[in-house]
């Protein structure tokens, strides 16, 4: 990787603004040893305090043009009996409602947990397992 480009060196998005850069570099700073911390500090100053240098650095690395990859596949479900018919509808409806949409998952939810591990359902009765239905 090109060490001389600050966006590459610190794995930053070249189109990121000062706030996002600061956030990312602060995260890196938390685990950095002293020499790395100095480098991080220098990179932060370079990229956030000098907009023209930020432009120069951003243009001299690869632009982000990769097509989005979308939603990862659901994890394989545990081998528990699957609710069927009306029972399934009753189980899924409140969960989907809680997530906001019945067709498009929220982008903030990376993947849905299996129902028997769903914290929303288990919060009502932690002892109740396996679920047989919600009344």
């Amino acid at each position, binding site marked *: *990787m*090109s*060490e001389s480009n600050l*966006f*590459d060196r610190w*794995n930053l998005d*070249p*189109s990121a*603004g*000062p706030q996002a850069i600061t956030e990312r570099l602060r995260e890196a700073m938390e685990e950095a040893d002293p020499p790395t911390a100095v480098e991080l500090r220098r990179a932060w100053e370079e990229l956030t305090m000098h*907009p*023209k240098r*930020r*432009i*120069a650095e*951003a*243009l*001299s*690395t*690869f*632009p*982000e*043009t*990769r*097509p*989005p*990859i*979308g*939603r*990862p*596949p*659901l994890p394989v479900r545990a081998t528990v009996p699957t609710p069927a018919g009306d029972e399934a509808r009753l189980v899924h409806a409140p969960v989907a409602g809680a997530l906001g949409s019945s067709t498009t998952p929220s982008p903030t939810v990376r993947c849905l947990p299996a129902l028997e591990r769903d914290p929303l359902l288990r919060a009502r009765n932690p002892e109740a397992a396996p679920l047989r239905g919600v009344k």
Partner: protein
Amino acid sequence: MEAAFRDDDARLLARIEDELVAGLIWARQAGSTAAPLPARAAGMVALLRAVDGGASAIERAIEGDLALVLALLVPGSLVGWTPALVHHTAVHFSRVAAALAASDPEASDAAKLRSIAAWLVLGEERRYLEALARVVAGTALPGAEAEAAGRAAALRPIDELGAAARTGAAECADAAQRALAMLGRLDRATKLAGLDERATTSIRRRADTMRGAAISTALAPILEALADASGRDAIIREAPAIFERVHRIWLWSDRDEQVERFAVDEATSLAWIAYRETGWDPLRAMCEPLAEMTDRMAERIESDPRRHLAYTAKCAQFLVFRGECKAHEPDRWPLIERALTICPTHRNARVVACNFLCDRADLLLSGNAIFQASALALAEQAVARAETLFAQSKRLEKTKARLEEIRTRNRGFIR
């Protein structure tokens, strides 16, 4: 029920394949030991899929055959490519150039030239760089300022070459020499970028200015050395070694005419001092390191006399100097003749040529040769030519008188 292989899965697979192909291209071009590129570099492969023949080239690359995709990356012209793809290739080839700089300078320079061509395309297109710069600047800069910073990115690689050429110029360093040579080859990049004549001229001027600055930096110590030697009254003794350094700078600059002009400008007055010294050795020693440069300058003048008008007389004088200090007559005449060719009105060249022709006629008129009609005819030819060059020469009068005397005396004996 969701399909087993979803659209999202297809996109994920394409991303993985793009990353795989980007890695293979990088390893092939930059070497397997080169540090990997950031994952974003795979975006170039994704964009290549949209280029004519791109999808099949990438399929072949996934199977291990990179020939098509590598050929796709080095088209004869970048015209028609999307700005984003051109941006990717600009960065990609600049990274390849950096990776190969030590191990394969020639391939590195070729990659650098490709990168510069891509930047020139973006600079000419303008809107892509301006828009990207506005996004990156956000609210930190006024729009116009951000756009200007974006446009400047297109010329930065050329500016960097100029800086590299200047940095090592005083030492005639190899890296500086490569940068200098590349500044001289930017026409190839402008052609690849499909720039029009106006843009090409603008780039050429920029490159020429940078070359000029680097060469001036290389020549600056020569001026100091000449001044120092003059101050110590050692100029005639030390000038040959100093002009040997100029010769080295000339070779370093790939025989640039700026160095030739510098040499002729600085050496002319010193050569006259050497000319007045006893014997030909001081002048010969001074002319020796300048011989190749003055020959090259004469070639330039012969091919385009008007462009080099200001230097024809100086160059001719140097050819005369070189001719005069040659020990043998056959070595002298071609140089004098060439001086007359490039500068037919050069007074000193005409005087010296006249004297040489008189010498030749005198030689022909001495000894038994005077009884041969052919020798007499050659002497007459030499005198006639000398008369066209410098008719008022006193030396010529003597030779003419001798010729006439022999002609009269030997009438009837000549075969």
